[in-house]
């Protein structure tokens, strides 16, 4: 039996109206198309990363799914509920984290802030205190002794944890996180990443996660959706995405002295050949989809010309390469 998706977006289109200002009173309304047809499906127990450059439409997508924004066209569903017509049902099934540093009342403690939102989110009064204590422990604020400190005294890492705690208050099946580690120091970012992975893999929650951090996306996300200029440009596991751009495996051969016969090398690897000379060593670099088919010929040419090979490396593409590749395509 096919699994049904926890989150589904079908051809989401969103346009914003803004004003172009000229002088004191002149201006004209312009329309910016933030999303031009984003579609994807996310299944239970998955952490899916929504990646894209600034202005790609990541936050707009998260806001639509969290019922905070109505799309101009297209549909989105959370656990089968329409985000526009059944917004209340969607809200009962999601936890949202939109920013790291804000979103709470300064003069209340972390615990009081969570109790406030727990009540607003419909938790009954007899379980609020217990649930708040649980989420404070889950995100580690209790361990830090920060639960009863005023929000205004929190560090950025603590604020991020508190934001995540609020997203978990209702024990939702779907958690939407918009750049949850933005600006955090490495230990805090690692804590958030571990928590997010645990949510999906231990508790079976569905997590949609936006980030710019490729390293983070690679270690946290089971699947990645790349969007650029409002459209979905690629989708798959980190490995699948890298495989898609295999043309960009980089081969570096370091040789002693001058190998000559660049014309022969160019004949083999094509125009992407790059030569760097430094401290009596020459590095020959080229990118190839299947470098194993070329390396033998290249080495034969070098050796036949008396080159002494010092080092040979084949660099696998990183997720950043994938990101850069697709960012240029959108």
């Amino acid at each position, binding site marked *: 039996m096919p699994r049904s998706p926890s989150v589904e977006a079908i051809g989401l289109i969103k346009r914003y109206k803004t004003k172009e200002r000229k002088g004191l009173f002149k201006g004209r309304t312009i329309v910016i198309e933030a999303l031009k047809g984003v579609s994807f499906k996310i299944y239970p127990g998955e952490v899916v990363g929504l990646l894209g450059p600034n202005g790609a439409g990541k936050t707009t997508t998260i806001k639509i799914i969290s019922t905070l924004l*109505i799309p101009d066209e297209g549909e989105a569903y959370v656990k089968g509920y329409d985000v526009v017509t059944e917004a209340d049902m969607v809200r009962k099934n999601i936890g949202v984290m939109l920013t790291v540093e804000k979103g709470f009342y300064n003069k209340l403690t972390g615990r009081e802030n969570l109790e406030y939102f727990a009540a607003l989110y419909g938790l009954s009064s007899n379980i609020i205190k217990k649930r708040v204590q649980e989420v404070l422990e889950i995100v580690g604020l209790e361990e830090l002794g920060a639960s009863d400190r005023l929000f205004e005294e929190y560090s950025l890492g603590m604020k991020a944890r508190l934001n995540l705690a609020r997203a978990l208050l209702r024990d939702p099946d779907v958690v939407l996180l918009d750049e949850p580690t933005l600006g955090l120091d490495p230990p805090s970012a690692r804590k958030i990443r571990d928590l997010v992975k645990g949510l999906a893999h231990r508790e079976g929650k569905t997590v949609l996660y936006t980030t710019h951090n490729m390293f983070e996306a690679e270690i946290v996300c089971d699947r990645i959706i790349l969007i650029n200029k409002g459209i979905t440009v690629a989708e798959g596991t980190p490995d699948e995405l890298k495989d898609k751009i295999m043309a960009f495996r980089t081969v570096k051969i370091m040789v002693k002295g001058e190998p000559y016969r660049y014309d022969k090398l160019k004949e083999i690897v094509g125009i992407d050949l790059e030569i760097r000379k430094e401290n009596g060593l020459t590095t020959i670099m080229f990118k190839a989809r299947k470098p194993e088919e070329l390396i033998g010929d290249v080495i034969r040419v070098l050796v036949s010309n008396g080159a002494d090979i010092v080092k040979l490396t084949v660099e696998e593409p990183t997720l950043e390469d994938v990101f850069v590749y697709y960012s240029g395509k959108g």
Partner: protein
Amino acid sequence: MGLREILWAEWVAFYKDLTRRKSLIVSFIVYPYILTLLFIIMGLAVGGLTSFGQRFHVSAITFFLTMSYLMLTLLIGADMIMQRPSSDMWAGTLPYILASPAPRVLRYLAVALPMLAPFIVQGIVCLTPVYVYYYGVEGSVLALLVVFLSVLAGLFMVPIAMVIMGLAYMVSEEGWRIINIARPLLLILLGVYYPRYLLPLVFRVATMIIPSSSLVEIIQYMLINNLTMSLASVLLGIATASFILLLPIGSKTVARWEEGLRFKGVKEY
């Protein structure tokens, strides 16, 4: 989800915030006296305490102290509602509040109620000694009645505050500027500083749509010792009916504003 949970949440949030801002507590106590002093000084400049008494059949001190207290009570809950979108935008809490399934009418009632509670104490503390001085021992009963009606009038401001807030923020993202204009107009229509029974009939009818203005009128009749049971019942009936009628309108206005935000996107500062 019921009023109990939401009320508890707003109650705790308000009182924790209040007790951590000492200047706010001081201002709660001194505001009615400061406002009374201001109006008495202004009044002395144009006439005098006696001429006021002769015209309105009530001591200027009693009248302005009561009206200053009443003004604070009427505006405090309403202001809290009207300014809430602005403060929530700055705190970054607005998206999370919009994403909550809490019924809006219950939520705004819950926003106003904790604000009104300290005014019971403030009213008793401020009004009772002055009333006892001017009206004798019965003054204490009068003070309790005025406090009760004032707090009720404050609560009855909720739907009109929801309507003004919703409309102001629908017109502009900086709706608080419009609210700053609407607030003094509201005070005139409420009849706080200019008795409604002295207003021209047209204005008097117009003020009927503001539920609290009828309660203000009851208090003013009480002060001049000219309130009959039938008049009190009629005014109380008008106030209650307009309050009930305005609640769904307030709810719809807030819903329209929120829907507008969902089209444009919630601004985060």
